[in-house]
């Protein structure tokens, strides 16, 4: 293949092309965008739908509200309208869009009106735009309609313009990802005209707002928003087109916005403003918050608010980060430089007069040091700082009493000490003792105790030590000065000490969390078993979150509950559906998310670079995780995912190795069986053909010898085949040993007779106890076992006689076969009962089939006995194979014995 057109000066942006490919397999979203209710979006949508239907396109109506308007209802005629789903909501039966029947119907295009609708009852998704996303993901084209005021990023602007709060909002990303946006435009004057003629439907609740909302000014402003938004989109599409087609263009010069937020109400506005700015500039934007390194994570209300703001930012398409640091200005600037931000956007709250003199506001400080980076201030018009930035955590009376008690005790002790010491020496600076009391209070009880101790100290110092003693007055002017200096120093020392205490506490908490994670990762790193990893993960999650936790892993194409802690935790149908969603879509699902929020659990996918390995769920019950829990969970999930992945890989490797070993074994087995079968066959076949063709030229004894060898080989083959069949029966578990009464002595006799026929040169000695009881078993199987043992003994037993012993030992019958051959090497001893394990003589001859002992073991165990091999047996020679069977309790009635 020639490779000459590899390099071109400009190649299409691969990401842009990928996005395009993804879009091809998905359905297309067409949004009919209007400035206000009544501009005719539904009408426009239905008119187009009719036209396509007439052209034979498979288009159906998923849901359209006609609001009783005849002209709209008329348009529905001739179009296929999907049935709705009934939902019971606060006692009333209402109808909702039926997502599943739409997915089942799978039309080419579906019309679903009112994109911003909030679903009722137990719908899969809380919002309709999520239903629509699922339809698109399933490859269905969707037409929908929405008014501009429902866009998340515009909601505050709209509320400013029109003076109404918009409750039903959709993320801007929904509109941004739409393939087509059609603006349905109507000049405001005409709209007002239509309204007056009663052609515009409005819900009862909105009737009151009509006068305020449908004013020419409002409508004009909304129309402008809608027009501008559409124009922006057209611009974006142009840029996309240029990128896909590798046309060098003047598109965005890489503006990056850094948006700083904190736990306050202003932040939300900052984020919205930044979002508009970003889309106007076509810029990427990052939302960041700085958490104090020494700060308490504690103030839940503020944290919740911060989380909400972050979620809003994510919905609006921002990246979000959290940074920890003490110097806000420094951290923001460092972050901005690292991320190459060109603009910083920050909320500026007005600082009340007296403080303005002492400290510069954060934005001012930022502006002073942000060389080369633009700083945008977003001011808070309505409420100049009604809320303190960090509301103090509420303190219980008991806690307060304890702190005051500590302060009073410390000061009291200092006073007593001062009075005692003063008797013996003149103390120049008795105030130092009081400083000590303040420090002690600060260290053990914190800020409030420190301040209290400073105040108590001031009073006590004045009362006991400053002239005139015993009063709260001060005589000498310089003492007055010293007293105030003392108060200031005490307060400062107290606050510093308590701050240090707080930092130490926070550091300790973090250290504990880090230690827990570290312990967890060490536990995991020592574990290669999936089960152990899962147990460690689920118990750790439960411990950290103090909520029930579950882990689900893929199984046969679905996912199934693998472990839960506490173990009796169960998942309902909704929970399982949410878990599946999390697994398939690789996103959080269940309680607190946009998918199946009715579930009690929230499920998170366990992601690795190789994909999703499972799902972790925890009970959420509408109580979202706190920020530090969230961090801990994220860390646990990451580690768990990697550990599960690793465990799975190592198990696969082991399986692979075992399979390989198994294949090698099977190959060796096959080759050995084929040799064992083929050698006698070769002898028989060769002998028979020789006799037929050359027999008349052979001397008589040669002929006889040939015939005898054919007979012997036939016997050998028969034994081998019988052995193979026995082995197969043992392995298949179809060996049904009888439970007859067996006289062991009798079986031994028969076996020796048989062995004498086969091994005529071998001497056998027997020693069987005369009181040997009966045993339960199968005499045929036991006979075969004995014969196999005698066969082995003959093969390996040297020239000495082979002896057979049988006697009773306690409740067992012991039966053994002993030879005096060279014995079995200790290393081989534990393998002698393995299938196809065999040892030949050094010259390679006289090998057995390698089945005799394996079969014996199978038979003996089938009869409830045990078998073992000992070597050397006697005087460093020989081998003894002994079997033990339980003595059967005779069930015969006494009279039958007599």
């Amino acid at each position, binding site marked *: 293949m020639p490779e000459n057109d590899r390099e071109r000066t400009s190649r299409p942006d691969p990401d842009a092309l990928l996005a395009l490919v993804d879009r091809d397999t998905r359905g297309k979203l067409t949004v009919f965008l209007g400035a206000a209710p009544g501009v005719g979006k539904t009408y426009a949508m239905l008119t187009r739908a009719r036209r396509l239907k007439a052209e034979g396109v498979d288009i159906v109506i998923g849901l359209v509200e006609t609001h009783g308007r005849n002209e709209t209802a008329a348009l529905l005629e001739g179009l296929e309208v999907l049935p709705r789903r009934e939902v019971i909501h606060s006692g009333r039966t209402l109808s909702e869009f039926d997502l599943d029947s739409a997915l089942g119907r799978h039309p080419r295009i579906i019309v679903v009106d009112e994109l911003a609708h909030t679903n009722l009852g137990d719908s899969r998704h809380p919002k309709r735009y999520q239903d629509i996303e699922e339809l698109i993901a399933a490859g269905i084209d969707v037409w929908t309609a929405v008014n501009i005021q429902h866009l998340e990023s515009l909601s505050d602007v709209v509320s400013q313009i029109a003076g109404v709060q918009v409750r039903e909002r959709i993320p801007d990303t929904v509109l941004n990802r739409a393939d087509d946006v059609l603006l349905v435009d109507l000049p405001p004057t005409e709209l007002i005209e239509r309204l007056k003629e009663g052609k515009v439907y409005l819900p009862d609740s909105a009737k009151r707002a009509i006068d305020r909302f449908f004013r020419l000014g409002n409508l004009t402003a909304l129309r402008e928003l809608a027009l501008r938004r559409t124009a922006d989109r057209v611009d974006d599409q142009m840029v996309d087109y240029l990128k896909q087609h590798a046309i060098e263009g003047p598109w965005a010069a890489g503006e990056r916005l850094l948006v700083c937020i904190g736990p306050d109400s202003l932040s939300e506005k900052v984020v919205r403003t930044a979002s508009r700015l970003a889309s106007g500039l076509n810029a990427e934007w990052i939302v960041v918050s700085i958490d104090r390194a020494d700060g308490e994570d504690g103030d839940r209300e503020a944290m919740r608010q911060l989380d909400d703001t972050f979620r809003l930012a994510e919905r609006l398409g921002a990246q979000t980060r959290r940074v920890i640091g003490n110097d806000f200005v420094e951290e923001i600037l460092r972050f901005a430089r690292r991320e190459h931000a060109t603009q910083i956007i920050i909320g500026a709250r007005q600082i009340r007069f007296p403080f303005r003199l002492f400290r510069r506001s954060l934005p001012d400080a930022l502006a002073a040091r942000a060389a080369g980076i633009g700083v945008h201030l977003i001011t808070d018009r309505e409420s100049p700082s009604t809320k303190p930035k960090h509301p103090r955590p509420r303190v219980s009376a008991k806690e307060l009493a304890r702190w005051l008690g500590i302060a009073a005790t410390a000061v009291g002790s200092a006073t007593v000490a001062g009075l005692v010491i003063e008797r013996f020496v003149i103390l120049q600076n008795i105030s130092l003792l009081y400083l000590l009391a303040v420090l002690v209070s600060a260290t053990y009880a914190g800020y409030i105790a420190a301040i209290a101790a400073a105040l108590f100290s001031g009073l006590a110092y004045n009362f006991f030590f400053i002239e005139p003693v015993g009063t709260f007055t001060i005589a000498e002017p310089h003492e007055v000065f010293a007293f105030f200096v003392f108060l200031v120093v005490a307060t400062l020392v107290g606050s510093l000490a308590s701050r240090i205490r707080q930092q130490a506490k926070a550091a300790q908490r973090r250290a504990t969390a880090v230690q827990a994670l570290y312990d967890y990762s060490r536990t995991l790193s020592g574990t290669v078993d999936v089960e152990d990893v899962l147990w460690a993960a689920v118990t750790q999650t439960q411990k950290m979150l103090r909520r029930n936790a579950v882990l689900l892993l893929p199984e046969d194409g679905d996912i199934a509950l693998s472990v839960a802690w506490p173990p009796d935790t169960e998942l309902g149908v909704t929970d399982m559906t949410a878990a599946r969603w999390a697994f398939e879509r690789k996103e959080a699902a269940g309680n607190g998310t946009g998918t199946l929020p009715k579930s009690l659990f929230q499920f998170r996918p366990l992601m690795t670079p190789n994909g999703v390995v499972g799902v972790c769920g925890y009970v959420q019950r509408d109580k979202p995780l706190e920020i530090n829990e969230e961090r801990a969970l994220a860390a646990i999930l990451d580690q768990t995912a990697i550990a599960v992945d690793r465990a799975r890989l190592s198990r696969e490797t082991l399986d692979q190795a075992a399979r390989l070993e198994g294949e090698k074994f099977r190959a060796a087995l*096959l*080759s050995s069986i*084929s*040799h064992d079968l*083929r*050698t*006698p*066959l*070769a*002898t*028989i*076949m*060769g*002998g028979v*053909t*020789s006799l037929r*063709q*050359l*027999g008349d*030229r*052979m*001397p008589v004894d*040669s*002929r006889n*010898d*040939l015939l005898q*060898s054919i007979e*012997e*080989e036939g016997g050998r083959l028969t034994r081998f085949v019988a052995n193979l069949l026995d082995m197969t029966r043992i392995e298949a578990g179809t060996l049904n040993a009888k439970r007859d009464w067996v006289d062991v002595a009798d079986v031994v006799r028969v076996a020796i007779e048989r062995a004498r026929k086969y091994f005529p040169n071998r001497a056998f000695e027997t020693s069987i106890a005369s009181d040997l009881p009966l045993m339960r078993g199968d005499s045929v199987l036991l006979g075969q076992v004995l014969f196999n043992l005698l066969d082995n003994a003959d093969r390996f037993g040297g020239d000495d006689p082979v002896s057979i012993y049988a006697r009773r030992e306690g409740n067992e019958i012991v039966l053994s076969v002993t030879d005096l051959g060279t014995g079995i090497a200790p290393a081989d001893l534990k393998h002698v009962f393995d299938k196809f394990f065999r040892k*030949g003589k050094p*010259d*390679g*001859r006289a090998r057995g089939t390698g089945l005799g002992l394996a079969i014996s073991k199978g038979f003996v165990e089938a009869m409830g006995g045990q078998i073992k091999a000992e070597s050397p047996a006697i005087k460093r020679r020989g081998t003894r194979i002994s079997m033990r069977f339980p003595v059967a309790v005779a069930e015969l009635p006494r009279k039958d014995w007599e």
Partner: protein
Amino acid sequence: MTAERILVVDDEPQIQRFLRPALGAAGYEVVEAMTGGEAIKAAATSAPDVIILDLGLPDMDGKDVVANIRAWSQLPIIILSARDRESEKIAALDLGADDYIEKPFAIGELTARIRAALRHRVQMHGSQAQLSTDGLSIDMIKRTVIRDGEPLRLTPKEYDLLVMLARHADRVVTHKTLLTSVWGVAHGEDLHYLRVFIGQLRGKIERDPADPKIIRTEPGVGYRFVRHDD
């Protein structure tokens, strides 16, 4: 004329037990060896005319025995092997063994192989210029091939292939030997060349190319030129 001497190398006593009287009755003298070491020694000292060698020996690999003997002697070697040991068999043939026979075998097959090997040993001394079988005659001096009185037009490669097979008449020639001798060492693995040219050759020399009688396929091993005594 003294009887030809055959060295039988097999570690299974049963095999020896029937080969000795059978080969003896067929007019051969039998020398036995149980191991590879014994085999090499016997090949050097007892001057056998043909060696029958089992590949599965207790002390060494049968292939090494072939390689060892081939280092100093062109004695015909017939491999006794099992069907599931295909690659071993081919390796032994490529190392210089002359033929093979699969266990179990009928004694007639074995004696036929022995006769072919002995005949070839005779030809080694006086190289045969002409060969004819079943209406086909090859004249290696004039470089002509005649089928039932009609001269055949063969391409040079087809002719080389036919001659290579005919020179080893009644014995198997492995794919590798054919490829390297006709196309060169670089083409030792190019089995498809062989498939194509054997097909063409059969089309020209066989009476019924669909049921070839002269060039027989030895599956997985090579081809055999079969002489029909007519």
